[in-house]
């Protein structure tokens, strides 16, 4: 049984991204209307809009939350060629006793000369670190040297990939593997040719203290729209999900006995890359991929209007569920819960019960 809960986003134009905080209790949305909105869940499970502000002077493509150990911080990137870092500030309480919250821009990252297409915070073990990529194919790393001071975000590194970049993802890194280098995968949606690689792996080299492109994945040649590394959970390899002309899952396995001390930017790549799975079920372009909390179920969103769920089973990856859009209005059941909603943005509807043993397995 699935319970659905619908929230009117109140954006005046297309929504481009919805991001949740570490616990899934706060939601940030961004849109072509140049606004960013933050929603909070109350004790009853209703989502309330708690902040809405014009964040950029162009479409806001992505929004992402920092780990809450660094406070309540989000980053946004936009068509206006900037990325921004925002922190939530609590002011004095008003007469009702509730604290007033608002978001202030802590930094404006203006190094890109073209649209900034993606922004992601790095794993928390690296401190407060941020990667952006832009339409002119430059991946940039910013870092707050003092995590308690969000005003300072010097640009640390630039890696030019020379093809329009559309998305990036940090490798969550293995905990049981000897000190691997920080790694980012960058994807390109360049559709001028379909022979060159569209996925690049960049790594930080401890010796040269630089980020550099260390690998291009030859097997992915169609435009890439989204990528994400799976949470590691003690595995001895990395899983990278890619949204391209199909859903692709790459497996990066560390080459044992690879000598890290002698590896520099030119001497090769200490991983083997193989395709773990490939699904053409969307029959067309795939736009988004997302891993669940343990990296066992992948959700892919395609041009066919479906979200498909893929789970790894004993010998293969299998589809375990499909969510299909339906333009019809929700069933009248939604009336029941209207009484409780002081904000009429919320409604519940049951999407039908699953009685058969093949009940949707999300877990």
């Amino acid at each position, binding site marked *: 049984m699935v319970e659905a809960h619908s929230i009117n986003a109140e954006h005046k134009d297309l929504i481009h991204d919805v991001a949740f905080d570490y616990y899934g209790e706060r939601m940030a949305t961004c849109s072509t209307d140049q606004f960013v909105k933050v929603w909070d869940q109350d004790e009853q499970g209703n989502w309330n809009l708690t902040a809405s502000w014009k964040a950029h002077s162009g479409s806001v493509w992505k929004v992402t939350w920092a780990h809450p150990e660094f406070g309540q911080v989000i980053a946004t990137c936009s068509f206006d060629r900037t990325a921004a870092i925002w922190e939530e500030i*609590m002011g004095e309480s008003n007469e009702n006793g509730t604290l007033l919250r608002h978001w202030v821009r802590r930094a404006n990252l203006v190094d890109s000369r073209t649209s900034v297409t993606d922004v992601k915070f790095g794993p928390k073990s690296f401190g407060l670190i941020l990667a952006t990529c832009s339409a002119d194919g430059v991946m940039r790393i910013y870092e707050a040297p003092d995590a308690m001071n969000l005003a300072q975000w010097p640009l640390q590194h630039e890696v030019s990939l020379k093809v329009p970049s559309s998305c990036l993802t940090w490798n969550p890194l293995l905990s049981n593997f000897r000190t691997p280098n920080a790694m980012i995968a960058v994807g390109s949606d360049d559709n001028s040719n379909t022979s060159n690689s569209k996925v690049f792996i960049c790594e930080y080299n401890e010796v040269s203290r630089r980020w550099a492109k260390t690998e291009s994945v030859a097997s992915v040649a169609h435009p890439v729209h989204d990528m994400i590394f799976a*949470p590691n959970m003690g595995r001895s390899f990395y899983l990278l999900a890619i949204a391209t002309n199909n859903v692709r899952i790459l497996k990066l396995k560390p080459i044992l006995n690879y000598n890290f001390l002698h590896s520099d930017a030119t001497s090769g790549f200490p991983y083997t890359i193989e395709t773990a799975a490939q699904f053409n079920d969307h029959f067309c372009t795939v736009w988004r991929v997302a891993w669940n909390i343990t990296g066992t179920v992948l959700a892919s969103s395609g041009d066919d209007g479906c*979200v498909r769920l893929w789970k790894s089973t004993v010998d293969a990856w299998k589809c375990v569920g*499909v969510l299909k*859009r339906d333009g019809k209005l929700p069933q009248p059941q939604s009336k029941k819960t209207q009484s409780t909603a002081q904000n009429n943005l919320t409604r519940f509807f049951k999407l039908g019960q699953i009685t058969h043993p093949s009940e949707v397995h999300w877990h």
Partner: protein
Amino acid sequence: MSKTIVYDTLSIPDPSFIDDEVRMFGSWFGMSNICIFPTKMSGPFNNQNSSGDDKTERNIIHLKHKTMLFDPKVRQLVNESSGVFQELQTNVDDPTKATDALYYSRKYRAILSTCILAIDRNNLDKSNETYNQYKMLLHNLQLIWHLCEVLYLVTVPGDTILNNLLDWIKIHYENAENQASVITENKIVYLTDEHVEEKFTFYWDTVIGLVLQGNIDTARMLLSNHSQSDTEPFIHAIKIFKSMPTYSIYGGLPIAEYTSRFKGWQSSAKSKLECGIFLSDSNLNDVMKIICGDPDSTSLIRSHCSTWFQFLVAQLIYTDPTVKKHSLSLYAHRSVAKYYEESEYNHMDTLALDLFDGDLEGFVKKLKSYPDSGWSSTHLTNLLHLCDKIEPEFEMSEVVENTNPNEQYLLDYGTFLMTHHSLWQAGVTYLDYCSAVGKEHLSMLLSKLEITSDLRVSKILHYATARRLHNVVSSVCKVKGMLSLQKSRIGEALCWAIRGQDSAFATHLGDLYLKEYVKGGSFACPDILDNLGSIVVTCDRFMFIGKYIQFLKLAMGNKLNEAALLYIELLRSNICPNYFRLTLLMDVLMFIENSNECYFNIADMSLITMRLDDAITEWNEDNESDNQYLLSKVFNIRQGIVKLVSISLIRKKMTV
């Protein structure tokens, strides 16, 4: 043979999707929820002409997976079984205790029964469809679990399994017995001379039902209640019923002897049947046909059985009462073939068939897809694994290496429970038995639990500490501390820093305290600062704050001699942060202004002047500071020091 359903499709109805151009994007959030939002992909670089004020509805949809186990009435199943699970695991590790698989199997089944009863109590009129469904699911589960127990965990001498199978069938199909008691307990029939078989339309169904469960005594009782019970056919029938030999393992009758007696009894019944003694009552004749094992009765038996395995057992009573366990597989396949015209088995049918077939591994695999979120497959697989009924290496998941399947089940089930806001503690129990990977999952899932209530935070910290997951402890404390800091509750933040032993965070908070002191001349939250505990050892800033407060107290209590010693110690150790240097140096004035006493020796005073010079040089380099007040005091300090030097010199001279 079985239908394979690959997946389910869920329609998401929403006005946002009226436009065909609109795409649906999905992502995960929280523990296991899915968020869906509508968007369009018209190439990211050319949709800048924002139309501004369009009225299109854009809804974000959150999907939450609700399963049976999360229902408040079913939760006791989860909690109690986790207790039994833990007891079982500890017993296995303890060589002094015998692991009695049967005992634990029955315990699990007892929990199932209690849960079914609880659901019944809350759904007396059976109007709640969800509860009816849950009851059905749990009931079937109990049935299949019981069968597994009968076939694999109970040891039967001589392997004559029929009596156990009958017990199994009787418990789960109680309809005939219930109806029988309705009929026999109805006294009005006796008093009014009514015909019992006419008053109760289900009379003959009940008799057949009882006969098919081997419940001959009750069936005989019903027959003697029949209005015609004093006629010849009934007298004969009752006699046959009475003389049916029963087999009991401990009855002392060898199998061969029993078999010959049974055959003798059946052939005498058959001869009576063939003479047409029972023909006067067609129902009675049918019953006798069943008893004689007449092949013609198969379709009658079939119509009285709701499942093929009920059919199988019913047939065995009168055809092969001493059936051995190993020949069950053959009979099972025959029964399935006879019971179903086409192969239209449901999940339960295949599960039962696997059990009769002796294919435990296939059974366990299929049980995994039973819609109880892995409850049964986890516990039953674990139990079968611990009593060596299944080998652990029969399946290997590719994604999580180095785990056996039993562990994989525990991992899946534990992770699943951890995603629920109130069942997560039960989930921890299962992940605890999943070696290294389990620890990885635990540390991830524990730190992802919402930390809204303080009670829950202490629970999380307790679990994490007990498992030496220090990264979880420090992460949770840091997050809580940052949230406090956001609300400007520095004292609260400090408590979290102390709890998480986070010296970097504590240093930051210490700076806030000291800067506050520089501005205002007093410390906030004195009670916390008085009880700093071990943070003073791990964090330099608080070592300084602790000492400095001690110094202030001594000075306040006019113990200037001791205060002076501490003061010099503070200056010498140089742990004072830069921005606090001048403030610290200002304190020298309290030794100077009030008295003519001298608390410092020459070396001390040269240290003070040295630190003062350092501080001023630093001050000049860093011109941003605007605290002119402190700078103006520098002259006072120098003057005071000169005075002190002179006093001490005079003293020295006098003592010499």
